[in-house]
């Protein structure tokens, strides 16, 4: 089994899918001759040529809409957004076009397209380039949304996304592009809509998606030192959401900490917390804890930007509250 970076796993997925299906094309800013702003598309231009790997002008609305139109008549475009921050310029084409095509046409048409790019905070990027915008997409019926945390899922979910008959938004993470992990050599697909239990435990359930999943694993290690067995769930897909896995776990542990690097209000994390509170109300021994980013735009200063985001310490503290391991009860 090969050790691949998250970046190379995505690259392998696109490479294999482009080789498999000539209708798959990749377009976006710097995806071709520059080999990708984050080198995710490295080598694809050389392999598939400029008809299938296209550098676009910096017109997110324009090329996103163009991708939707191409998808409506049979192509399988992959639209790369340099980051999800810039996708805000294209949100109309996702929300009003891609997500509605099947519906508005009474089922006659579809837009099988993948929108992908890095989402969430990186480092030293200040407020316009360090935003976690998952809820913008997770909100919308008519699309699917995935957020891989590991190279194997990046590979398997992107391949599923490219083959999906509906629009799929892929939330990658700049901070994970260099993360290495095992990816099986043989081809496989990761099903969209299935969460992964990364670690089993009986005392508390930790839930997140994307980059913060790595914090959950570290938090679980910390908690183990306190004799707490934490179960760690990586949602992998936000839409559809695998509620079954979450609820089965909370039924066992009676406690949950939900982590989302987005802002707190109207976020995927707050939604998951609400679902647990509703579905597992009678079994909860503590309020569902929710760790999000602070409700502020991201500052540039490094100490400040770290303080804004979820951290292992914040997650452990939330878990201890849910476990009543804190002694200072008012």
């Amino acid at each position, binding site marked *: 089994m090969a050790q691949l970076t998250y970046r190379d796993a995505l690259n392998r997925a696109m490479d294999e899918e482009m080789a498999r299906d000539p209708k798959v094309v990749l377009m976006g800013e710097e995806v071709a001759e520059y080999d990708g702003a984050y080198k995710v598309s490295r080598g694809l231009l050389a392999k598939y040529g400029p008809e299938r790997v296209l550098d676009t002008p910096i017109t997110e609305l324009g090329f996103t809409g163009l991708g939707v139109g191409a998808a409506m008549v049979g192509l399988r475009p992959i639209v790369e957004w340099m980051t999800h921050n810039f996708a805000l310029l294209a949100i109309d084409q996702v929300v009003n076009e891609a997500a509605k095509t099947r519906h508005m046409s009474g089922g006659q048409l579809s837009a099988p397209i993948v929108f992908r790019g890095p989402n969430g905070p990186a480092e030293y990027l200040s407020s316009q380039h360090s935003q976690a915008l998952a809820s913008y997409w997770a909100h919308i019926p008519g699309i699917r949304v995935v957020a891989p945390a590991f190279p194997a899922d990046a590979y398997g979910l992107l391949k599923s996304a490219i083959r999906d008959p509906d629009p799929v938004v892929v939330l990658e993470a700049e901070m994970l592009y260099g993360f290495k992990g095992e990816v099986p050599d043989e081809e496989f697909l990761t099903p969209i809509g299935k969460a992964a239990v990364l670690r089993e435990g009986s005392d508390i359930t930790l839930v997140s998606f994307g980059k913060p999943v790595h914090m959950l694993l570290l938090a679980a290690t910390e908690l183990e030192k306190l004799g707490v067995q934490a179960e760690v769930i990586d949602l992998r897909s936000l839409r559809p959401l695998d509620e079954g896995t979450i609820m089965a776990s909370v039924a066992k542990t*009676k406690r949950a900490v939900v982590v989302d690097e987005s802002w707190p209000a109207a976020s995927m994390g707050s939604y998951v917390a609400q679902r647990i509170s509703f579905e597992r*109300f*009678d*079994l*909860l*021994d*503590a309020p569902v804890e929710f760790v999000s980013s602070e409700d502020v735009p991201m500052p540039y200063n490094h100490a400040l930007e770290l303080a804004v985001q979820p951290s292992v310490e914040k997650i452990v503290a939330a878990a201890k*509250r849910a476990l*009543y391991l804190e002694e200072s*009860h*008012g």
Partner: protein
Amino acid sequence: MAEPIFMIALSPTMNEGVIAEWVAKEGQVLKSGDALCEVETDKATMAYESPVSGSLLKILQPAGSTAAVGQLIAVMGKAGEDWQATAAAHTGQAAPGAAASAAPSQAASAQVAPQAPATASTPSPVPSGSQPPSTQPAFPALGPVAMGAPEAPAYAESRIGGGNALPAGLPPSSPLARKLAKEKGVDLRSVRGSGPRGRVIARDIEAHAAAPGGYAGALSAAQAAAKPGSQAASPVPASSPASRLSAKGLRSERVPLSKMRSIIASRLSQSYSGSPHYFVRVAIDMERLLELRAAINAGRDKALSLNAFVMKLVAAALERHPVINASWEGDAIRYLPSADLGLAVALEGGLITPVVRSCELRGIEDIDGELGTLVAKARAGALKPEEYGGASFTISNLGSFGVEEFTAIINPPGSAILALGAVSKEAVVVGDDIVARRIMHATLSSDHRVIDGAQAAAFMAELKALFEEPARALM
């Protein structure tokens, strides 16, 4: 067949329009899109363009007339074509399928109606004379609801905010703790919560249940006490009214109003909001009365109830202060010729006030006998309207619950109600000594429209004097 032309909605909110002007004349040949007429909508004057090409055969609604959306206003067709069949087929009613537009139209006229001169619907003046005001519903007279009585829902002050209020007595607890407590038969109130703000959490229930003899909570103890031979201490006497009334346990349930509940709600809301209540309190030394009652009961098979003594003395006080024994009639105050005393009796799901008539003329034994009969009938649900209606004055005694004092809501047609608390020993100053005396707190609720403060105070002073020296009643 010729084409019917209906009034159409020329604005999204238009229900009808006034035809300001017919731009086209009868006989004129129009193309579709040519202006037929100008229509004043609720928003603006709009051109109504012909939906078809042809000759304007007949104008059915002249300029200046109002037409509802869907109403036939004209007929078009080929020159010389018969318009009458088309008109006949569509006249009077809305266009086929235009029901949706007809309804808002009617609604709109209904809204306009109240602005019409209200010659016929001028409210009638309140009838004068001896009739009670018509606003007095002919509901059976029911007893008062004691404010702050134990069965009334009471909510603890939230420590966080209003939204987190929990039922009184139930500590904060996690859903899991509540579930476990129910399974293990643990009374949450007997568990000390170790979570934030004293929240009872799962481990507290487990620890409590594991502790030997640790989970006999108040309710289960009360239930245990009800069993013969039980050794468990009971904080509330099993036979007391409190245990009878509260033996259900908490529940989440929506219960439709019973007839009785509905009448209580209606009458007492009306009484409390419709008559200006005020309250006069006295503390009564009960030693002499209780001694008297003990002496009288000493040789009797069946003890006379304290309530019978109370009613007799109240009747005596009313005789001396007839302004209290009165009824508000809107344009007059009716002073009532006898002390017809109601006594509030709690029932399952409500309460009722059997009335002992003319207490001023009857002896205590007589009053007690009738009261016993009426209360038994009340509990059996067998009281007749004449047995519970028309109290001139009402007494509510929550002393058996241990209530110190309370205020009650006036029970019409009476104008006052006396709320009696428990008799309990208090330290009082007699001469220069502090002594223990059996004291009862009494509160009179009065309708200020009928009874002024000084009158209520004088009555209560009389009542206190009579209770403290019952022999005064002989005078």
